[in-house]
């Protein structure tokens, strides 16, 4: 049975384009232009993944509201923000509300499809028994590529998908400097330098929250970042 994706987007052309792309990938798509109709439909049936625009025409923060309500109904429901608002503040707000990813509309359709697929893969992996094959271990770090989870000293670090890919890209070859372009490619996102900087900063903060002595990510001035081997 095909997975059902709900798109809440006020811009008809974009909504239709995304819907077409998802359908091409074999998903069932429900498209909504506003928060109200979307919530009514979700009362009847929850989709498997929701793509929300933050700015829903006159409902400026409507996407955030929708995210909050959905998260209260279904804790596990994957939610992706897809918006033109690229400010750091909005991204942080969206992720705090429990969104699994915050993407700007710069993202290309193939990248979007890959993200969605990855999210579904993670959902599937969580339902499967753990298999050791899809695990990478680097000292205290453990990367579960199936569930897209990262553990530091056996404690899970709550990373978003983008952050996961960034850590994954750095930690796969410890000691190698990854420049920003490489990190962008790894995260399958078009991000500018500052966004990478903010992401790395957030990642560090999340690790430090678990382990105050964390310093495995090194900034290489003028080049990029690298994961330090033990």
């Amino acid at each position, binding site marked *: 049975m095909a997975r059902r994706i709900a798109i809440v987007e006020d811009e008809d052309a*974009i909504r239709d*384009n995304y819907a077409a*792309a998802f359908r091409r990938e074999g998903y069932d798509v429900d498209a909504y232009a506003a928060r109200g109709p979307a919530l009514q439909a979700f009362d009847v049936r929850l989709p498997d993944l929701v793509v929300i625009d933050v700015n829903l025409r006159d409902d400026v923060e409507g996407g955030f509201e929708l995210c909050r309500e959905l998260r209260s109904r279904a804790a596990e429901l994957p939610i992706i923000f897809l918006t*033109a608002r690229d400010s750091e503040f909005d991204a942080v707000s969206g992720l705090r509300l429990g969104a699994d990813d915050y993407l700007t*509309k710069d993202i*290309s359709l193939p990248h979007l499809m890959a993200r969605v697929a990855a999210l579904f893969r993670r959902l599937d992996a969580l339902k499967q028994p753990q298999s050791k094959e899809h695990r990478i271990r680097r000292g205290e770090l453990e990367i579960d590529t199936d569930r897209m989870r990262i553990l530091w000293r056996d404690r899970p670090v709550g990373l978003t998908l983008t952050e996961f890919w960034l850590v994954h890209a750095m930690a796969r070859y410890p000691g190698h400097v990854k420049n920003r372009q490489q990190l962008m490619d790894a995260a399958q996102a078009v991000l500018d330098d500052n966004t990478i900087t903010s992401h790395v900063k957030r990642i560090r903060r999340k690790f430090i929250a678990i382990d105050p002595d964390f310093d495995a990510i090194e*900034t*290489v001035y*003028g*080049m990029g970042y690298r994961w330090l081997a033990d």
Partner: protein
Amino acid sequence: MTLKRQLLLVSLLTLVLPWAGYRFIHETESALRTGQQQMLAGTARAIADSLAKYPEEFPAASSSGRRVSDQIYGHALEARPEIDGYIDDWTIDRAALQTMRGVDGPVRFALGIFDQAVYLYVEVTDRHIVYAQPEAPPSGDDVGNGGRFSDGIQLVSSNPPYLENRFTFTAEAPGPIITHVETANGSTPEPTIHAQWQDVPGGYQVEARIPATLLGTHLGVVVFNTADDSQAPVRSSSFTGATPGAFVRSSPELTGIAANLVQPGMRLIVTDAAGWRIAQSGKLTPPDTGGSGIRSAWPRIIYDALVESGEEASLAEPDASGLEQQGYIVAALNGSESAGWFRSNESGTAVVAVAQPIRVRQHVVGAVILQQGTDAILSLTNEGLSRLINVTLIATILVAVTLLGYATWLSRRIRRLSVAAERALDGDQLRVRLPSAGSRDEVGDLSRSFSSVLQRLGDYNDYLRSLASKLSHELRTPLAIVTSSLENLEHEPLNEASASYAARARDGADRLRRILTAMSEASRVEELMQNVEPERLDLAAALAAAVAAYRDVYPDRRFVLATDLDTAPMRGSPELLIQMLDKLVDNAVDFSAAGDTVTVRLDRNDGRLLLAVENPGPSLPGRMRSQLFDSMVSMRPGSDSRHLGLGLYVARLIAEGHRGRIDASNIEGGVAVVVSLPGDNNGE
């Protein structure tokens, strides 16, 4: 002209004060003087009326018609002169001598009266004195006898209409001489007359004492001058016509009356119809030469300007010759009451004088002259003047100082305002509270208008700054429509031509996306700056690493890191600082040619770190220097879509976020961008 100078000029208006004071004192002074004059005139009128009761005391009235110059005045002497042929011991001035023409030059003479005796003094200019022969006493009309002539003087006395007596003074030698009286009966020596002849260079002089009883009412002086004793002498006399003029003398009667009428501090002079002084009494109060007189230089000048100048004060004195010739007296003798005003600048003496005609049966027989010093007025004006000067001085200084202080305060407010406005403009902090904003005066208005102008300017600047990010934000949605449509299109069957068009459209959309990303970078950096948690870092080490990286990134440029510093500790965000350096290096690379050397320099100056990026290349045009670091200002030639003039703006945001300054300047053969950052000296 500064405000201060303008107000100082305005303060000159206080000079009206002394002018007004001057007018006031001037008016007061002249009112007082007029009052005094009128009072004097009243007194003089009363005196004139009372003197009119003594018409016999004005003898000149009877001899009117004769010339005044024929008359001889008998000065009242105050001491008995010694008969020695000199006038030195007479109590009159030499100016009192009457003059007549002589053969060899002027003849001067005077008559005095003391104690029932008449004194005669004559000085004759004579080039060759001819003495009389001892055995031949003079006789007849001429001075000389038997064909022998000599120089000599005759005093002609008459009691019209009676015959006259002649007293002849000749000398056989200088010294005491014998006087002969010549009557119809012949010439006889007169022993009661004492006379002395003195030779002096250029002539001789004779002094004689004659008992008053020997003389009549009319007197004349005659001088004979001969070249030698064989020639008849030339005669010159003090009178014209056959008979001598009246002998005018002061009247003891009138003098007595005058002494009773005169008040202290006043001088009373009575003249006859010709103006001869026939009575005088009283003295003017001598001017107080002590305190009240103004002696120092500059108040004197003001004082002289203040008090109406009169005739010279010495002119108010009784005329030495006995004949009062002052205009106001002459006017009185012509029948009209008149007044005079005398003032001496040197002594400060000031005299008010009035002259009043004395009329007997409608005829003017003489005049009363009453004079009074004006010490009272003077001291009043003096006091007024010094007060005026003081008050004016204090007022002027007070006003000037006040205005100056006010001007200083005002101009300082305005200057502070303009400095604050300048600073706000320079520092790009347009939301400051300007000084004087709370004042309710015009400066406050000015400050508030300035504030609102700055506010609007700030709003506009903010608008410009946010324009890029707003624009990119607004354009992102339509761009997403385009890109997503194109990506969907790729999955549709297309013929070759359509596919190539779609590919081109994709390229264009990609470029558009990159531009939008660049445009929003500035606002991203601003957000980052607000959330940045400064950490300690070593800028020197960071630069070393970064410069090494640039060598790989830009293989066709050479990079030199020029620094003497081993460590350069500071606080900040290393990522952002490196991003700033990226922008500067990117800029430097763009403006230099392949093979050029880009120099990254780090120095420490006064606790601040100076980071410079230098590149060879074209220099900056002066007018763009200050705008170089503004949003969307690019100096790249042509249009390069990768650059929207945001790179240096981002660099500036980062520098200012680290409390630093960024500046660009031309160096020899190139351009240097210098960032000054605060160092962290607490470390190590």
